[in-house]
Every structure is written in structure tokens, then in C-alpha cells.
């Protein structure tokens, strides 16, 4: 069973994504903000894929991305960024900083699933 790590500060987004992924047979761990994510990342087993929101309190998705890419454990984990539609410059920045892909919010659940599958082959 593949495992996926979700970080988003909106509880409802976490719920939707978690429901969708568990239905597809993935195992899901979630964190409610960047700080919480960082705490989990140091102790948890490395997931097969991670999904980071960009705008979050305490620590934004870019910082978290940078943190993950600097950890030797995490540097090859596929990371998909969730960005708000109004911030197109974020997309460039996300890809430049080592994100594997991005999805714009509001998102189409099926599209997100397809992108996740592609990263996991």
C-alpha cells in the first residue's frame, strides 16, 4: 500500500483529499500546518508522495518544500504543491524549488488523483 502525506491548514480540504485517497487504497497521514508537518516529518516513515499547500500559518509550503528537499531522506520523494489560482508566480516558484508538480485550487479531485498516480507510476 502506497502512503501519502497531506499538509493543508483547511480541515475540509484535508478531509476531502483523505477520503478520496483512502477510497483509492492509499494510506494517508495529514498535518494541519507547516510546523506540525515538520514535527511529523522528523519522526514518521518516509511516504511515497507528499502534498503541500502553499499558504499556511507558521511555515508556508515553499519553506516546507525547501526543508524537505534538504533532508537526505526526502530529497527524492515526489512533492505536489497546492496553489491558489490567483498566484500564478507561485507555480513557477514551486517548480523552481523542486516541486514535482502542482495543482491549482479549487481543484478537480479526479485531476489531482491522476497527477498523484503519474508521480507514483
Amino acid at each position, binding site marked *: 500500500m502506497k502512503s501519502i502525506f497531506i499538509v493543508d491548514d483547511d480541515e475540509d480540504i484535508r478531509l476531502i483529499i483523505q477520503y478520496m485517497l483512502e477510497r483509492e487504497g492509499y494510506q494517508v497521514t495529514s498535518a494541519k500546518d507547516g*510546523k506540525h508537518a515538520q514535527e511529523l516529518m522528523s519522526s514518521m516513515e518516509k511516504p511515497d508522495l507528499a502534498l503541500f499547500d502553499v*499558504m*499556511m*500559518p507558521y*511555515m508556508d509550503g515553499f519553506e516546507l518544500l525547501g526543508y524537505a528537499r534538504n533532508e537526505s531522506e526526502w530529497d527524492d520523494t515526489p512533492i505536489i504543491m497546492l496553489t*491558489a489560482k490567483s498566484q500564478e*508566480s507561485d507555480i513557477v516558484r514551486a517548480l523552481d524549488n523542486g516541486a514535482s508538480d502542482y495543482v491549482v485550487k479549487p481543484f478537480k479531485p479526479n485531476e489531482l488523483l491522476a497527477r498523484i498516480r503519474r508521480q507514483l507510476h
Partner: protein
Amino acid sequence: MSEFIKLFEWTFLIYFILLNTGYIGLNLVAVLQIKRYINLLSSHSLPKSLAEMAPPVSIIVPAYNEEPTIISSIHAMLQLDYDEFELVVVNDGSRDDTLEVMIRQFDLHAFPEAVRRRLETEAIKTVYVSRKYPNLRVVDKVNGGKADALNAGINVCRYPLFCVVDADSILQQDSLRQVVQPFIEDPLTVAAGGTIRISNGCTVERGFLSHVDLSRKPLVLLQIAEYLRAFLFGRMGWAPLNALLIISGAFGVFKKEAVILAGGYRRDTVGEDMELVVRLHRVLRTEGKPYRITFVPDPICWTEAPEDLKGLKSQRIRWQRGLAESLSANWSLLFNPRGGAVGWIAFPYMVIFELLGPFLEVAGYLFFISGAVFGFIDEEAAIIFFVAAIGFGLLLSATALLLEEISFHIYPRFRHTLFLILAATLENFGYRQLNSLWRLQGMIRWMLGHKSSWGEIRRVGHGSPETPVREDKHP
């Protein structure tokens, strides 16, 4: 002789009753502002799409010697939940490494920006842009005080609305969205203040407020109770009359053109935030331009209150001086034929109860105490005076507490309510009286300072030792 004494007795008694009922009245008018928060069912926020379509905003953050906190503050501000905003940090000639830590952390690079000088300021040395955050710029300038730094920020910023935030203010993520709302609802809005709450006792992590709690320190609790009574609902009452005279420097949004029309921030006052708002009223009223100055009651910005008597005392002395300077710089608004509710109600009210209040309050207490001691007043009358002054004070405190409970109730637990009731009661026995004394000192300093600096421009720098920045803000 005894007629005179009778007259004084009546005057003081009536003054104290009026002072408190005036505030109770303002509290009740404030209900107009918060009635949409009162409905229990709608206490949760509206879907975001009802709040979309917000105009772009420039956030100006003046910074002087903020090295320890500036990074986390800016990080937190960059995370604000808002579509389009830029952050302009103005380093006002800090003597520590404020600028250097920002350069390192945000990958700042000097940028040859031809700044449009619409307001006179001390020289700008360099404008930096961040390679990490495209919407962050840092202005490095020669020290000139907070007002000067803000004016430089106004010159540099690009959007039609600008938001002033103290470097150590703690913002909620949705604060900008909330405080811009009046500008969307009413295009005539020129200024909107955010509501400031006291952060002592709350948990703050990386520039964000993560947990709300009441402080256990008695002095802070007293300030919170005082704060609800005098600063929150007492001021909110002026907004429906479009006569709000104070917007805290810790968090407020302004229409840039209106502020430039009024001349920007004044450098020669310790209360530049209040002075600007009073001046906006004066300029726009006398020019006959329709406008609205308002504020957003949601608790969206948090700031630290002094925890010891010494800090509190100097803060209050400075506030009183700032108030005096703000009002005296705009005397022509008082009873101005075009002054409307500001010139005819709010301004006189401020003069009588806030500016001259300390004199009358201290005089009242002295009169009755000495009268009873030296026997020129009956004991009965003196006791009644004190009982009435405290009784009406209690009523005012309870009204304010009730409003907080039915509207925001930001302190979640039952014991919080009990603590607040206790603090609101005790506040009337000593704390308010002590405050009157401090404010009296502030008035005296203002009058002396006023004379000694007559004809010369007194510069208030961030850096001068008598003006610690941290005590600079009105909540």
C-alpha cells in the same frame, strides 16, 4: 462660601455620572456595529467567495531595532490570506542588524528604484527587492522616526490602499481581508482601523497566535477589562456617527490619496496615528468631501501590553500627550460649522472627558477627600460621591463586558468569564484612579513641553531614549 462648596459637590458628582453614562451610551451605540455578530447562528464566518474581489493593498511595516522579531513577523505577514498585496518594510536607520538579517533571510538585492517623493522624508538610502518573495521590498532610510518611516513607505508603495502594521503586531491570517471589507462595501471609505487585542497570556508561535488565553497577571487582567470598557466599545460607538477619532497605529488601512491630500504623518507628535485620523476628519470636513472613517470590530490584531507599573505608567503618559497633541493640532475642527458629528459631538466629548478629564477627576477626588478631612464637606456627601463614582464605573464595566460576551467572546472558557468579571469589578477600585493620575502627569508634561519647545520643531525619533517604540501604540 457654602454655596460654592455645594456647587462644586454637584459639579463633580454630575461630572462623574456623565463621564460613565456617556461611555455607557457609546457602548450602546456600539451595538449597531456589532449586531451582526450577536446572532448566535451566524457566529461562524461567511463563505470566502462572498468576500472575494478585494482591491490590492500595500502593507507598510516601519522597523527600528527589530532584529530579534523582524524575520518571524515578516514571514507571518507574507502568509496573510489575501489575493494581492505587497509588503514594504521600512528600516528607519536601525542601529542593530535589522537590515542585515532581512537581507540574508529574504535574499534581498539593491534595486535602483526612482522613488516618487510625494511626502517629504529623510533620505532613502537603498530600496531592496527580495528574490524569494516577489511582493516584498525593504526600504533602508536615514533615521527620522516612525511617522517619517511611514511617509517614506507611502512614497514607495504602489497600490491605492495602504495598511500600516507595527513590526511586532501579531495578525490573524484573515485580518487584511477583514479590514479591507469597509472599502469594498463603501467606496467613500478613506480609513478603517482593525481592532487590537492584548496578546499577553496567549501563545504566539512564529509570528502567529496559536492559542487564546487570559493572562494570570493582575495588571494585565485589569488592562483587558479597561480595554473593553474604554478602547473597544467606547470607541466603536463613534463609528456609526462617522466620528471615530482614533485608529490604532498598530493596524489600520488608509486610502493613499486621502492621506497624501492631508499631508501624510506628522513627525512632531508622539501620537502620529491619532493625529492623522483627526486631521483627515478636519481636512475632508472643511473641504466638504464626503468620506467615511470606520473600523472593523473583529479581533484581528494582537499586541503586547506592558506587564509592570513602570511600563504602563510611561505608556499612559505618552498616550495622553499624543491625545493632547492630536487635538490641539486640529483645534479648528472644534465647533467648526462644517464639522458635523465630529466637530460638534466627538471632538468636544474628547476634550471634556479625555483631555480635561484627568484634571476634573483628580480634582474631584482631592476636593472630597480634603473636604471630609478638613470638615468643609459633610462626611455623608463625601461618601456618596465615592460610592456614586465607583457605582457608575461598575455599571460601565459590566456593560462593556456584556457586549464582549454577546459578540466576540474571544476567551473561550467559563473561568475566563469569571476572571473578567472580577477584573472589571476591581478595576474600579484603584486602577482607574491611578490612571487618572498618570494621565494628569501626561497633561502637565505636554503643557510644559509645549512651552519649552515653542517655535522650534520637536523631532521625535524612534531612537531617542525617551521614546521607546514598544509603548508607542494605542490599542
